[in-house]
């Protein structure tokens, strides 16, 4: 299983119904974007799970690394004024 025998990897995002955010579902191998879409449809949406699918080359995704979690995310935790809780923030993990 050397790298050259594998097609590129694509990350798959599904939109469950119109208007809601896309969610990461997993990934597929495919030679190009049309085949990636079809593979994503067959692997992740064969039972009507999605109304729309995005596929993105995995290598196009920039990710923060877990070691940076402290400097990336901690500073927000102890400043209560950054957490307005009197109105709903879409997608926020706190109430």
């Amino acid at each position: 299983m050397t790298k050259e025998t594998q097609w590129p990897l694509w990350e798959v995002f599904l939109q469950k119904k119109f208007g809601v955010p896309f969610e990461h579902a997993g990934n597929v191998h495919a030679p190009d974007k049309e085949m990636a879409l079809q593979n994503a449809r067959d692997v992740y949406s064969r039972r009507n799970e999605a109304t729309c699918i995005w596929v993105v080359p995995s290598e196009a995704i920039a990710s923060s690394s877990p070691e940076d979690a402290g400097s990336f995310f901690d500073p927000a935790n102890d400043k209560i004024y950054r957490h307005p809780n009197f109105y709903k923030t879409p997608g926020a993990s706190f109430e």
Partner: protein
Amino acid sequence: MMDTNHNKNLFDYCLRIADTSLVLGQRLGEWCGHAPILEEDIALTNISLDLIGQARMLLEYAGQVEGKGRTEDDLAYFRGEREFRNLLLAEQPNGDFGQTIMRQFLLSTYQYYFFTGLTKSSDTTLSALAEKSVKEVAYHVRHSSEWVKRLGSGTPESHQRMMNAVDELWMYTGDLFDADQTDAELTAAGIGVDLSQVKLQWENKVNEIFAEATLPVPQNIYFIKGSREGKHTEHLGHLLAEMQSLARAFPGAGW
């Protein structure tokens, strides 16, 4: 008397459509666990399940039309080879992946235009079944045609394998459009599909995809026909032996 003949024709017509889906579905099922990549394994068996679903609905309806109380299972598992009416192309062996894809493209394209025509049938059961099936088949065409383009214009080896697939399969494409008296009578009655129209649409699509795939369309080939009289190639008997063995060894077995 007229009515009996009409029902016999309609029964036969349903079997042709149902058996083609059933046999092709069974063939694709043979890939389960064997396809070149996981994603394609799932894709081929998805298509197989679509086809078996079509066959079930059509066989159930065929049983009603026949009026002898036969169920979809009776028709699928307890008919012999000569009673099957599937197109010869559907029963051809999987061969390599290229041959499976070529068979799929040629048949799915046929089914797409056939079912599109059938949505206008005056038989409301058939038109409803066609309405549902045409959406599934549209995806089968998309999947197989994208593969034909890529394999045909891919590497020298993939191109050669697609050429071999065309050589293996093209002789069975004349059977798709070999309309008989039953086709003529049901088409005149507004129930069946005019196969001469399907043929034109099929040829256009095949020419278009073959051109993109850099595959030549064969000319002046001798066609092997006979599905409408149940005259099959040697491959169908083996397929049925496998498909029917469990139901015949354990009649009425449940899942």
